[in-house]
């Protein structure tokens, strides 16, 4: 049997679903009953970790886990049940709308004073908060733009060209030292954190897992390509102002040049990406498939909903 040694270690289980999936991947136990997903908290630690572990097989996998399990039919059945529970909850909790223009408009205004995490970090964040923020965000930023690459074969024309151009920029425009995931590793080094991929999965809170999982969910399913585009748009549109606040937080705390640069680069890059994603990616997709407006709007509102849950969780942990 070929053992796959590369990749991060499997995480610690957080309940029966995640314990079953992890044991199965170790060749050391049976998969959970897919029906058990129906009773699980759709946003809770156990379901979200089980789903995260299933999805990670499509990125880098885990040390000691056979690569063939990525396409293991019984495991995919369990993953499908977890996804169904998560997606059904999102569709229930996020109001459906085809008013895409209104949803986009909502993202394009900035409060003079906000109450979210980036505002807190800008004004009051200490190094310990910045480290905790980076630990959580590392679950995404160390694979930044990876889940979005899956949508490329499902787009055409203007939408494909625009999406590919943004992804090219995310992946360093041909230069390894500019790959955004690598820039984030530089930020982590400045903050004294371990930059190894997957190192902080055990510390990832359920709302952070859910945020990464929603990208993987939208990215891996062709039928959800509109939601993936909406998700991507939400990230790019909201990134610049938030990144400016975070760059300020890094500077004020003397976090280091790489930590500051990660966010100043995102202020500038995402001001461009936002324009391209709205004009070319959303505009092009709607030209090709006008019925996608509802799914694009869902991708945006689902992302905002999950970001809000994550922000609430972090601020609650910091008791502010």
């Amino acid at each position, binding site marked *: 049997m070929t053992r796959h040694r590369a990749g991060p270690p499997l995480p610690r289980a957080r309940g029966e679903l995640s314990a079953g999936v992890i044991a199965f991947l170790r060749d050391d136990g049976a998969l959970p009953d897919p029906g058990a997903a129906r009773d699980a908290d759709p946003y809770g630690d156990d379901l979200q970790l089980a789903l995260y572990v299933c999805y990670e097989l499509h990125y880098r996998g885990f040390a000691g886990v056979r690569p063939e399990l990525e396409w293991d039919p019984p495991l995919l059945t369990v993953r499908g049940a977890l996804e169904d529970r998560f997606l059904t909850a999102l569709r229930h909790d996020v109001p459906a709308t085809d008013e895409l223009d209104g949803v986009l408009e*909502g993202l394009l*205004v*900035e409060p003079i004073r*906000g*109450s979210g995490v980036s505002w807190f970090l800008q004004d009051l964040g200490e190094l310990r908060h910045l480290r905790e923020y980076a630990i959580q965000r590392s679950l995404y930023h160390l694979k930044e733009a990876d889940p979005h690459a899956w949508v490329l074969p499902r787009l055409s024309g203007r939408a494909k060209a625009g999406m590919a151009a943004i992804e090219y920029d995310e992946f360093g425009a041909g230069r390894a030292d500019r790959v955004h995931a690598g820039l984030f590793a530089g930020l982590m080094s400045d903050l004294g954190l371990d930059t190894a991929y997957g190192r902080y999965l055990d510390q990832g809170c359920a709302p952070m897992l859910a945020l990464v999982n929603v990208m993987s969910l939208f990215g891996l399913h062709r039928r959800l390509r509109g939601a993936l585009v909406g998700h991507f748009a939400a990230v790019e549109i909201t990134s610049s102002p*938030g990144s400016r606040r975070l760059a300020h937080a890094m500077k004020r705390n003397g976090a280091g040049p790489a930590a500051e640069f990660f966010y100043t680069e995102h202020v500038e890059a995402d*001001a*461009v990406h936002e*324009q391209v994603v709205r004009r070319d990616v959303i505009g092009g997709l709607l030209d090709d498939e006008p019925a996608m407006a509802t799914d694009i709007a869902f991708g945006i509102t689902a992302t905002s909903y999950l970001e809000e849950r994550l*922000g609430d969780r972090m601020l609650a942990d910091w008791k502010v």
Partner: protein
Amino acid sequence: MPNSSEHPCRITIGDDGPLLVEGPVEVTCADGTVAVSDRFVVALCMCRRSRMYPWCDTSHRRRTQPGEKSRRDTG
């Protein structure tokens, strides 16, 4: 893509917000400073409010007053 008569530099003007210019670009500002970018497209600030001038930093966006409805107070 280098400029040529077959492929002229594409510039996009929107209703509001920045001017989009295909990169790479070298921008000389009024005070003589030169900014260079090799990004595939750059967004040039038109509102003059950017703190990264000449690049757009989304400062042109409409601001909501405290209490005014906004979906964007969480990020």
